[in-house]
């Protein structure tokens, strides 16, 4: 093929160039090591085909020589291959040596003089020339060697400095690892995914774990040291929390399974032992309230410990351990403790202790139900005592007052210490119901109590207080099973009150009857309401009578209650002889009344009252 020295590109020349390139590639493939990229280390001259394009003439890239004798072109191809074959094995070793040296420097904190670009380029070239495997295994062995050295130096460190040394070396390792990863980024990007090996960063962590943490001496020493520090803190010493946090973080970075096996599991076991012993000690020496205080303190301490230097996921686990050892195992003992158990707390109104017991027992299964059961049985006992005590029963008012006091007390306890827990409220209600109905005379007593209050007890008391007392009575009323007995008694008492005019306040009467109506329905209170209306009517009638007979105001005053038959309880009539003036007055009234009302037969029952 003859090419003229003509700068103009002819189609033939172009075609020949293409053919040449094709030939080159074919021959390259047949060679042992297909290389598609040329190393920039060797000069280009003599190995590349000089382009004929005008633009490139004289540029530095492809050699500044003039286009040489075209016949030499064919020879170029053959020479090129010879070069490549010779360079490669030495080249790989040379490059690796550079990188190995760099890694050494990095680990020895000498990296400041290194050129990133050079190292990156070397790594890049190695991977490109298919020496990725060599690079990777070289990396592994170098790092392992370094880590073994490091582990040795950590082992040799004296007692107290062990953790600090470990921490420092860990930080160094991390820094070095990052630098190495940056240099070997290309390998990370291309070689590793295609061969499914572990990336550099993970590799560094795994090697650290295997060579340092899992090394027999360090492994056990690390665990012992950490547990020792925790124990020290539990017994009151101050430890270096920052250091602990770093070490724990290191374990977490190495993998959550590492953290769990190397630290968390033994930590939980040791803690369980510790708290078992401690709870035993406390139970024997303190009373219930104090024990609860201590248990609470330990619980908060552990939570605090987790926030400061443990993995957040450990919080649940360690609190379970504490709860189990200190609370669940001693629940019954605490509740039934002599002189300071739940019963005593209830009797003495120890709100703080009760509140603490509630919040601690809430954390363990069956905690609250135990407390509830004991409280219920205690209330029932007290109540039973109360209703069967003959002394107390002599004074019904006093009796009911006692009941009210007890109810108040327990309401207070449930409200402030037990957080108004519904289940406790229910337990209280059921207990009261139980023992109030043990005494068959309870309804009568309650009615007497109300009677007493409405006669004189509520004199001078403000309206709200009246309401409060009546509400409390209603509460007791609800517990009664024999509500109709109550109704009967109440009716009688009410009648007596009205007819003797001894009621303190009509409004109070009315309000109580309304409450009863809301509770039991109008059927229940129909008679009572009838009585109330009658009273009102009578008063009006009296007024009417006196206003129509003004001359009688000088004489004896007559108070007449007009009662509807059936509403009022019947009493046998006691006939009494009225003095003459009274008699005439009565007749006058009767005629007046019969005149004003179209009423049925009026039975003159006189309730003698002097």
């Amino acid at each position: 093929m003859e090419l003229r020295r003509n700068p103009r590109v002819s189609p033939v020349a172009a075609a020949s160039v293409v053919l040449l390139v094709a030939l080159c590639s074919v021959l390259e493939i047949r060679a042992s090591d297909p290389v598609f990229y040329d190393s920039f280390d060797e000069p280009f001259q003599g190995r590349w085909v000089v382009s004929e394009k005008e633009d490139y003439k004289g540029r530095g890239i492809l050699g500044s020589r003039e286009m040489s004798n075209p016949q030499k072109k064919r020879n170029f191809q053959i020479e090129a291959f010879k070069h490549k074959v010779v360079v490669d094995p030495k080249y790989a070793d040379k490059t690796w040596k550079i990188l190995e040296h760099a890694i050494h420097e990095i680990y020895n904190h000498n990296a400041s003089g290194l050129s990133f670009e050079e190292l990156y380029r070397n790594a890049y070239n190695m991977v490109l020339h298919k020496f990725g495997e060599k690079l990777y295994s070289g990396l592994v062995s170098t790092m392992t060697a370094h880590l073994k050295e490091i582990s040795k130096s950590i082992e040799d460190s004296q007692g107290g400095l062990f953790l600090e040394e470990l921490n420092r070396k860990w930080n160094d390792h991390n820094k070095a690892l990052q630098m190495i990863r940056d240099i070997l980024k290309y390998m990370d990007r291309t070689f590793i995914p295609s061969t499914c090996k572990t990336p550099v960063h993970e590799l560094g962590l795994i090697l650290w774990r295997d060579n340092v943490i899992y090394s027999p001496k360090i492994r056990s020493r690390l665990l012992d040291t950490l547990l020792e520090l925790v124990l020290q803190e539990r017994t009151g010493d101050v430890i270096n929390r920052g250091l602990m946090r770093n070490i724990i973080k290191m374990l977490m970075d190495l993998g959550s399974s590492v953290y769990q096996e190397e630290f968390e599991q033994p930590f939980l076991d040791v803690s369980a032992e510790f708290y078992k012993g401690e709870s035993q000690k406390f139970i024997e020496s303190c009373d219930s309230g104090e024990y609860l205080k201590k248990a609470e303190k330990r619980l908060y301490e552990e939570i605090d410990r987790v926030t400061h230097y443990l993995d957040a996921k450990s919080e649940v686990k360690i609190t379970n351990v504490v709860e189990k050892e200190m609370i669940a195992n001693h629940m019954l003992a605490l509740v039934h403790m002599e002189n300071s158990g739940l019963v005593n707390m209830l009797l003495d109104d120890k709100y703080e202790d009760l509140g603490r017991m509630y919040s601690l027992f809430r954390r363990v299964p069956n905690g609250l139900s135990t407390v509830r059961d004991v409280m219920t049985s205690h209330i029932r006992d007290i109540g039973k005592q109360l209703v069967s005590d003959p002394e107390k029963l002599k004074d019904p008012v006093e009796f009911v007052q006692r009941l009210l006091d007890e109810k108040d007390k327990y309401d207070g306890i449930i409200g402030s210490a037990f957080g108004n827990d519904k289940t406790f409220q229910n337990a209280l209600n059921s207990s009261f119901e139980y023992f109030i109905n043990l005494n068959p005379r309870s309804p009568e007593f309650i009615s007497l109590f109300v009677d007493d209050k409405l006669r004189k007890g509520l004199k001078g008391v403000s309206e709200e207080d009246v309401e409060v007392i009546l509400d409390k009575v209603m509460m007791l009323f609800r517990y009664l099973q024999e509500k109709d007995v109550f109704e009967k008694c109440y009716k009688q008492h009410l009648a007596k009150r009205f007819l003797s005019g001894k009621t303190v306040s009509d409004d109070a009467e009315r309000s109580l009857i309304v409450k009863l109506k809301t509770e039991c329905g109008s059927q229940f209170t129909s008679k009572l309401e009838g009585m109330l209306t009658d009273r009102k009517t009578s008063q009006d009638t009296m007024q009417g009578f006196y206003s129509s007979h003004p001359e009688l105001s000088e004489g004896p005053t007559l108070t007449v209650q007009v009662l509807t038959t059936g509403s009022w309880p019947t009493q046998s009539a006691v006939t009494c002889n009225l003095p003459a003036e009274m008699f005439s007055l009565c007749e006058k009234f009767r005629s007046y009344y019969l005149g004003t009302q179209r009423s049925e037969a009026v039975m003159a029952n006189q309730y003698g009252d002097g």
Partner: protein
Amino acid sequence: MRKEDTVKLISSEGFEFVVDKKAAMVSQTIRNMLTSPGSFAEAQLGEVTFPEISTTILEKICQYFYWSLQYSSGKETEFPIEPELTLELMMAANYLHT
């Protein structure tokens, strides 16, 4: 441009291109170089030498950086590449992880 915001890229022939750091960081490799924790020489001196990248290619690459920033901030223009440069440009791009 202030000194702190710039970085010098040096080609194989010794041509120096001073570019914004932001532009240079378009290349992941250069970004790693400059932000690596170790105290490598490049980060300290603020200049990076590329003994394997020629001036023409490096110039094209710097143009690419600026074009890339422009493109991602909305202005979508074309980036012309001469066919003769493609091969070396591609290899350099692979090297620089751009």
